[in-house]
């Protein structure tokens, strides 16, 4: 049983349009792994397919994590397996408070087959402390807990809430989909600190980003480049800097060059 996230020859489509055209990728435990690529290269599709979004059709390939065939699992089962997706565009859910939602999520993780949910649910005092500590670390006001999920949130507030969810659910493999987009400098620093605090030898992080910005704060161990639905290059942190400096065109040319 491997604690790495292993993706083999993954193909996925939206409707008739194939977006992922054979992705091969391994995100190792204890590693911060960045995927960079131009807009439309399929990065967000990859994130959604890993998390199990039913809006995407997987047309081929495999995803394995901790000995489980991830593609055979519902989205909630993937979460319980330790996978987490920080959304690029978190959804607003009117009438559901942040606190109620987080408690439902935590209790869903604590639930055990054949046991009364009352037995396994988090004690209220423990939950409050967990929430308070998390919000403090992310420099969120306490009133945040009573607001409706993502409703009327600024871009920075939404991303902080994603990190807060990651902190309380403690996944072992987190996919961060463009978490840096739409953030000002302060929010970026807070979010990056959240990711850095979260990363540990027991956890893997897949950071999907278009820019170098977040990577200045969160140092990746491995950088993969995605173009046109495939991983076309893998390197160390220096690859991110090179991309920042030179853009993506040179890689595209090389890839096309290899292909022809």
């Amino acid at each position, binding site marked *: 049983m491997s604690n790495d996230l292993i993706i083999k020859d993954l193909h996925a489509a939206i409707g008739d349009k194939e977006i992922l055209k054979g992705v091969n990728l391994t995100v190792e435990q204890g590693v911060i792994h960045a995927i960079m690529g131009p807009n439309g290269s399929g990065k967000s599709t990859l994130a959604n397919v890993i998390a199990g979004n039913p*809006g995407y059709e997987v047309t081929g390939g495999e995803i394995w994590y901790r000995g489980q065939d991830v593609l055979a699992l519902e*989205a909630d089962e993937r979460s319980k397996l330790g996978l987490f*997706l920080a*959304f690029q565009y978190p959804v607003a*859910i009117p009438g559901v408070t942040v606190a109620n*939602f987080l408690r*439902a999520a935590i209790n*869903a*993780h604590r639930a055990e087959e054949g046991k009364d949910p009352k037995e396994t649910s988090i004690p209220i005092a423990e939950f409050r402390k967990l929430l308070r500590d998390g919000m403090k670390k992310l420099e969120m006001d306490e009133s945040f807990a009573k607001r409706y999920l993502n409703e009327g949130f600024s871009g920075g507030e939404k991303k902080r809430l994603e990190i807060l969810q990651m902190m309380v*659910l403690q996944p072992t493999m987190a996919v961060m989909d463009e978490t840096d987009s739409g953030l000002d400098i302060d929010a970026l620093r807070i979010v990056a600190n959240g990711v850095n605090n979260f990363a540990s030898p027991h956890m893997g992080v897949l950071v999907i980003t278009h820019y170098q910005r977040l990577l200045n704060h969160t140092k990746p161990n491995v950088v993969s480049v995605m173009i046109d639905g495939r991983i076309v290059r893998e390197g160390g942190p220096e690859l991110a800097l090179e991309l920042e400096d030179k853009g993506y065109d040179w890689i595209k040319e090389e890839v096309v060059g290899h292909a022809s």
Partner: protein
Amino acid sequence: MPVKRESTDAAVFSQSPALAELSVDQIAATAQAAGEPEWLIERRVEAWSFFAQATPPEWRRTNLSDLHPETISPPVEPQGVEIVWDDTLSAQGVIFTTLKEGLQQYEDLIRTKLDTAVAPLEHKFSALRAALWQDGVFLYVPKGVAIEAPLSVRYTLAEGRKATFPRSLVILEANSHVSFIEEYQSDDTDDSTLAGPITEIFVGEGGSIRFASVQRWGAGVYHIGGQKVVLGRDANCEWTSVALGGQVQHIEAETRLEGDGSRVHWIGATFADEKQNLVIAPWLRHVGAYAESYMEFKTVVTDEGYSVFDGMIKIEHESRGTSTRLEENAIHLSPTSRNDSIPGLKIDTNDVAKAGHASTSGEIDAEQLFYMQTRGIKRDAALRLIVMGFFEAALNTIPLESLRESLAEAIEAKI
């Protein structure tokens, strides 16, 4: 001290004839025996005559095919009227009593308002209600008196009851305030039972009311109701309409913004499941100048439930500077459920500040479900959270925590 009392002095028929066997003379004799004033007996007789000759209204979306009014018997037991309030308020001149008792002591006050909001001779069922109403509540709040704790009445059905016709009359004098809760509740009944309630509320100049109307009859009950709130100058109404129970519901409701600068915020929550057919026709009628209204109704349908939102904004010729908006959002949880949303806007004046309506209808948002599932929440639990959230704003306006909680439970049980 909060007191709870039940009505015992209803005008009742000595036997239990079916409606088809009732005569004008019996109606008059029964009312006379109960000591009702002459004007009221005349009204009953007039309403009964109207009922007897009228053909049933053609409500295309309300399924009354299994309701046979002629076979229904008017109540022989006292009405189920449960009043809960703090009777020390009577020292401030507040009156909260059964309508029958009220007629004994405050006849003139009742006579000037009764039947002036909900027209008795509108159609066959309105006439039936006006002819046969048994009892209900009379709430009167004097000038300048503000009551914080909610006053509530619960209308229930005794076992085996085939019909009930309760009515509420609420009069708020200038600059007074009250929270009033009206609840209809019963167990399931095997046969079709008719409930025909009338609610009339008058809010005087600068007065304000928080009004919650909660329909949670058991299965088998046909609720054909009329409700109207009339707002005076600068009067304010916050109205919550909850519809969860019954077999068929047809409610004609209206806020009449008669006074200049009057305002209403009207929130609705309807949930139709199994084979329920829940129809509500809420009207905003603008008469006064610079009045403001906002209506937001939330509807959920599942199983073979069928709900209808027949909302209307009517801006009368004499009004000026109206600001109004009407919204309905509906969620379908099953492919065999149905919601008809028919928002309307009729404007008879050139002087309107703002007027609009919108409605949405669809399945539960797949992105919302997915988002919750990625946090480990199972699909059915996520669905429940989303639906509860959908009704949250409406439930939050219910001014009684115990009722809020029991409504939340009732909604969860339907999902």
